[in-house]
């Protein structure tokens, strides 16, 4: 072979290969494959519709437009026309279209077999079972609802009442202690807060921008009072143990030790009285002299709030035209009535009761279903008293126990007795949308439609300053075999030949709207929302200083460290757990892998001899022990660790299960001195490096 031959050989081979279609076709095909792996879902095109409705998963009843594509919800977008939430969204409501189809969603009725496993059954079978069990139970039936804003409660309570049982309960929430407090101070209606009318809000313990009250409405108010790049039109002062989301939006943060809310409020009362604010009502003198003991020095020592900040906060309240003081709990349940009483007293001193921008007396939601228990009466009943009595054998366990839209097994302290109550009850039925810890304890699990899949409603949620009424309308078909809980209970009542006075959900909603003077047609057809300012005759309030004094005598929790729980809506509610689309919102200072993260300040960490990233064991007074990862964050009081709530699920799906620890496991039920209210949410722990 000569040189020429070699060159010919090389060149010919190359040209031949390049000229043939082999290479080019393969390359083209290869690109096509890499873009169209069969296991990656394709998009479904279709007509988009935007239908206004309200969220039933988000506790604040966020108003949103559900975007459907060919009838399937794909997005939820804030509804600017909603007069309550003004288009403001929460992380939870924003995830609702995806929650609708999440792996934790219940698809079909489930019956527990004798060996403990669940068997999928038909609705016909489930309804038959339900009817039999209810008939057999007679008067021995109890129920708890975790959705106080829904009128489905009336159907359920009516069934119970007609069976001869008065054991219908709401899940413990923020309103129950507030109702006790308002009544103790002479309030006759329902406690309302006109946050919109106020120019300075002091929120003690209540995370108003994340979880307290009608959060979406609070946020939209914050938006409107804080123009972009401009001067704020409303001052917000927040007192809490952790510099949480609310503190981030507040003008002033009062770092207040968990459980010292009363001392702080009494200290503020002392300061505003000194500044000449002493709105008159019966008991003023006694209250003032009681509060006089709470000098800034003493309050600072008890609460940990620097004196000058106490004074700055008092000054802001005194100088404000329409100050408003709100008390609440970090957890949103198990809070004390005493701090709300003290907050009411502080509002009274400031003249912020029964006026615009102050505390208001609102009417309680009315009942329209025959034989239903009134909202107010249900609110007065204490679920944890009942379950603890059943657990202790003091009260007979019910033959039939309903859990509706609630997850008490997860969301109440371990010694609440709820698990035992379910176990002891003859038959337990969970009506829920997601496979929760409570569902896993029940004998029969019935899949409930979501707010966007069925008729439901949102009656004035606690924290509002107005009467509001919104309808949840079926925007999409219920997922899989889910069914409207309202229709389910109505059908049960009809089977049992009980009298409700309504034949279906639309009629029930119509009667409600009618009772409120709300425009039912517009609500039904266009998703309009009813709001009304209602002025009742002013309640004859008085300074119930004795009740305040009694509540103030509550002792704190023992332990080297106080646990400060933080609630974030991105973590979902006990009923939803963490939405699939919110796992990325959960931060690395809340959760790391399978451990909850305990935030503490540098001084605390030094004292405990731990570094950021170390594993730490926390042992609570009830001997529950959890392992957490330490993180350093200076926005937190000394000797305090903050843990985010909403972790430690053992049910639901892979997005929630096996992540961190449930902060409620560290808490125990106590009784508040004076009111006897079951309270929890505080925990003292001892820490050791794991």
């Amino acid at each position: 072979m000569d040189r020429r031959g070699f060159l010919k050989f090389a060149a010919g081979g190359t040209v031949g290969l390049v000229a043939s279609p082999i290479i080019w076709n393969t390359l083209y095909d290869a690109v096509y494959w890499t873009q169209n792996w069969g296991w990656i879902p394709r998009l479904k095109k279709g007509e988009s519709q935007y239908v206004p409705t309200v969220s039933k998963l988000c506790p604040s009843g966020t108003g949103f437009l559900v975007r459907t594509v060919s009838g399937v919800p794909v997005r939820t977008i804030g509804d600017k026309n909603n007069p309550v939430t003004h288009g403001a969204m929460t992380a939870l409501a924003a995830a609702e279209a995806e929650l609708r189809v999440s792996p934790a969603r219940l698809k079909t009725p489930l019956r527990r077999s004798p060996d403990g496993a669940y068997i999928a059954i038909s609705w016909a079978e489930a309804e038959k079972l339900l009817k039999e069990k209810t008939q057999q139970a007679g008067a021995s039936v109890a129920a708890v609802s975790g959705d106080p804003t829904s009128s489905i409660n009336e159907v359920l309570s009516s069934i119970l009442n007609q069976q001869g049982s008065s054991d219908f309960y709401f899940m413990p929430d923020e309103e129950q202690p507030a109702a006790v407090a308002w009544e103790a101070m002479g309030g006759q209606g329902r406690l309302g807060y006109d946050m919109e009318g106020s120019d300075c809000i002091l929120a003690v313990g209540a995370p108003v921008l994340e979880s307290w009250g009608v959060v979406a409405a609070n946020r939209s108010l914050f938006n409107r009072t804080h123009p972009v790049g401009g001067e704020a039109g409303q001052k917000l002062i927040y007192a809490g143990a952790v510099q949480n989301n609310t503190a981030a939006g507040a003008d002033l943060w009062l770092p207040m030790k968990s459980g010292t809310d009363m001392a702080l409020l009494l200290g503020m009362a002392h300061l505003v009285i000194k500044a000449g604010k002493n709105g008159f009502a019966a008991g003023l003198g006694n209250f003032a002299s009681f509060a006089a003991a709470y000098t800034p020095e003493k309050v600072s020592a008890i609460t940990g709030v620097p004196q000058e900040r106490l004074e700055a906060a008092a000054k802001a309240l005194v100088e404000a035209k329409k100050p408003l003081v709100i008390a609440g709990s970090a957890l949103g349940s198990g809070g004390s009535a005493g701090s709300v009483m003290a907050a009411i007293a502080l509002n009274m001193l400031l003249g912020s009761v029964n006026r615009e921008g102050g505390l208001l007396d609102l009417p309680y939601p009315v009942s329209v279903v025959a034989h239903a228990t009134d909202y107010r009466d249900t609110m007065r009943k204490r679920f944890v008293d009942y379950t603890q009595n059943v657990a202790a054998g003091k009260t007979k366990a019910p033959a039939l126990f309903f859990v509706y839209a609630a997850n008490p097994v997860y969301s109440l302290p371990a010694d609440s007795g709820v698990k035992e109550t379910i176990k002891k009850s003859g038959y337990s039925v969970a009506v829920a949308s997601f496979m929760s810890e409570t569902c896993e304890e029940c004998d029969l699990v019935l899949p409930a439609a979501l707010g966007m899949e069925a008729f439901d409603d949102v009656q004035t949620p606690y924290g509002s300053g107005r009467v509001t009424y919104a309808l949840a309308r079926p925007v999409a078909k219920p997922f899989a075999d889910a069914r409207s809980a309202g229709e389910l209970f109505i059908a049960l009542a009809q089977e049992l030949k009980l009298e409700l006075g309504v034949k279906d959900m639309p009629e029930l909603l119509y009667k409600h709207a009618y009772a409120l003077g709300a425009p039912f047609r517009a609500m039904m057809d266009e998703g309009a929302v009813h709001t009304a300012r209602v002025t009742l005759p002013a309640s004859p309030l008085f300074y119930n200083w004795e009740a305040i004094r009694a509540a103030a005598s509550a002792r704190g929790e023992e332990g080297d460290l106080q646990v400060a729980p933080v609630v974030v809506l991105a973590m979902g509610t006990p009923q939803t757990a963490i939405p699939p689309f919110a796992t990325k919102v959960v931060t690395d200072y809340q959760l790391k892998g399978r451990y909850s993260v305990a935030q503490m300040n540098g001084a605390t960490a030094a004292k405990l001899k731990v570094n950021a990233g170390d594993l730490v064991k926390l042992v609570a007074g009830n001997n529950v022990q959890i392992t957490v990862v330490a993180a350093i964050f200076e926005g937190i009081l000394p000797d305090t660790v903050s843990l985010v709530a909403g972790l430690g699920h053992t049910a639901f799906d892979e997005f929630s299960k096996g992540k961190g620890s449930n902060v409620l496991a560290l808490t125990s039920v106590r009784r508040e001195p004076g009111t006897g209210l079951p309270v929890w949410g505080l925990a003292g722990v001892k820490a050791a490096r794991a």
Partner: protein
Amino acid sequence: MSSEVKQFKIRWGMVIDIDKCTGCGACMVACQAENNVAPAVDGSNKLRSLNWLTVFRLSNHKPFPDHEVAYLPRPCMQCGKPSCVSVCPVIATDKREEGGIVSQIPPRCIGCRYCMASCPYHARYFNWYDPKWPGDLAQALTPDVSTRMRGVVEKCSFCHHRFMKAQEAAVARGEDPMNLPDGAYITACTEACPNGAITFGDLNNPAHKVHELIKSPYAFRLLERLGTEPQVYYLSRREWVRREGDNYLEHEKTGEATKQG
């Protein structure tokens, strides 16, 4: 060595008022849902969770009780002089179209991750595995944004599909698609923010709010000294927050260094 600042008639931009942001994360959820970003089972590993928009927690670095906190949502900055565009070997990312949005074309991307290395904002994310929508979650995919595949980089597009929709709507109304009214096109995060912390619009258009907002003495951009010319602006009345927006030597003051930079 590096491309120059590109000029456009329309320059879509964001003004994020940090003093209004409380870090709730609604924007992040909305972004994922809108753009068909697959959910992550473990989102706590921030180095592996694909998120076009991330909210950072800022600290004034003072010990308790003088500590202050702020939250900073970080979308893609849509830089005027993007560090990523010039480095991409296959033009999978570009800044060419009117509006100044830095595009990203996943089917073109070969997954070399050079753009990720170039971006000081960490705005770019990689598909370490094929995206997964467990169970029936894929039913909730929107029809607007194609799903991606493993091995490609993706990032915030300022919800570019909404820009196109807004333009189509303008054409249908007989209006100029190149002169959209303020608010006709906004991103999903802007829409979702309950606190109204995000304002979106054409930075060049005097009829748009953002045009004025960026002139505020409180306005700043992230890492301006590097010369990336971001189209995302931030606002804060707090000096320490503005100082967190860029690197400063001890003696340097925020306003001055930025101007010289």
